[in-house]
């Protein structure tokens, strides 16, 4: 009974965050802000469903499965990369050197750094 409540809670939480993430995609006005909304669907939204699935198979079906853990790990590894791609595309298309804050270092942001410049002032990478 207690386990069933936990499983239902996981499913409900995942559903709520899934719908809030999708709603944010419609509601938020700016492309960079919209990028924040779907990050919820991948973390707590998917996480809740995976925890529920793990509890169900582990405690009720008595067949412990590691696949949910693997899905979580792979999601957490790949989600930042897709986010970074989208952000980078946005910077290329809609931003310029002046619309972004200063780097505070000698070189500009990597997106605006031209390879010729690199030859002029070589900087050693550690």
């Amino acid at each position, binding site marked *: 009974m207690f386990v069933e409540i936990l499983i239902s809670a996981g499913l409900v939480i995942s559903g709520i965050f899934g719908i809030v993430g999708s709603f944010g995609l419609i509601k938020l006005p700016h492309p960079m802000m919209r*990028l924040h909304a779907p990050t919820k669907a991948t*973390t707590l939204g998917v996480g809740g469903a995976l925890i529920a699935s793990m509890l169900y198979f582990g405690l009720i079906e008595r067949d412990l499965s590691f696949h949910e*853990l693997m899905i979580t790990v792979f999601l957490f590894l790949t989600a930042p990369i897709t986010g970074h791609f989208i952000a980078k595309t946005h910077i290329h298309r809609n931003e310029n050197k002046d619309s972004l*804050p200063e780097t505070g270092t000698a*070189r500009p942001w990597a997106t605006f750094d031209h390879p010729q410049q690199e030859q002029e002032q070589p900087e050693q990478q550690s």
Partner: protein
Amino acid sequence: MLRKLLPHPLLTLTLIIVWQMLVNKLTPGNLLLGLILGLVIPFVTAAYWPNRPRLRNPLAIIEYTAIVIWDIIVANVEVAYIILFKSNANTHPAWVTIPLDLRTPEAITVLAGTITLTPGTVSSDVSACGKALLVHCLDAPDPDAVRDQIKDRYERRLKEIFE
């Protein structure tokens, strides 16, 4: 010689464990296949990983993971609140520059991934010299506070782990 055959012992171990979890059944055959994959993949990809990342304090990873998971949950609720109850005119998106003290590429990658995973912040770009990170915040009335929090909460701990 051993270094050439086993360029990344930790990667080998990780691959073996991941393979066992993927097939979900521990048999000698699966273990052998996992071992072969764990030996072949690091050997083939060794050219892309010229240096071994050094872990100074591996136990701190557990603490770091726990903190990040807790922050993900808290930040999820915060962002859900912003989406549902705050008007668009009242949210203040901002770009924040984070000067980096970390120098190893692996540590910077983990930091950037952590920033993106905690909802409300997305790491968008790195400066060409790798000494600053560009982060976009969904709602940051005080961008300096965001910067200080990231530096103190995540970067300090990553510095303990990697450098």
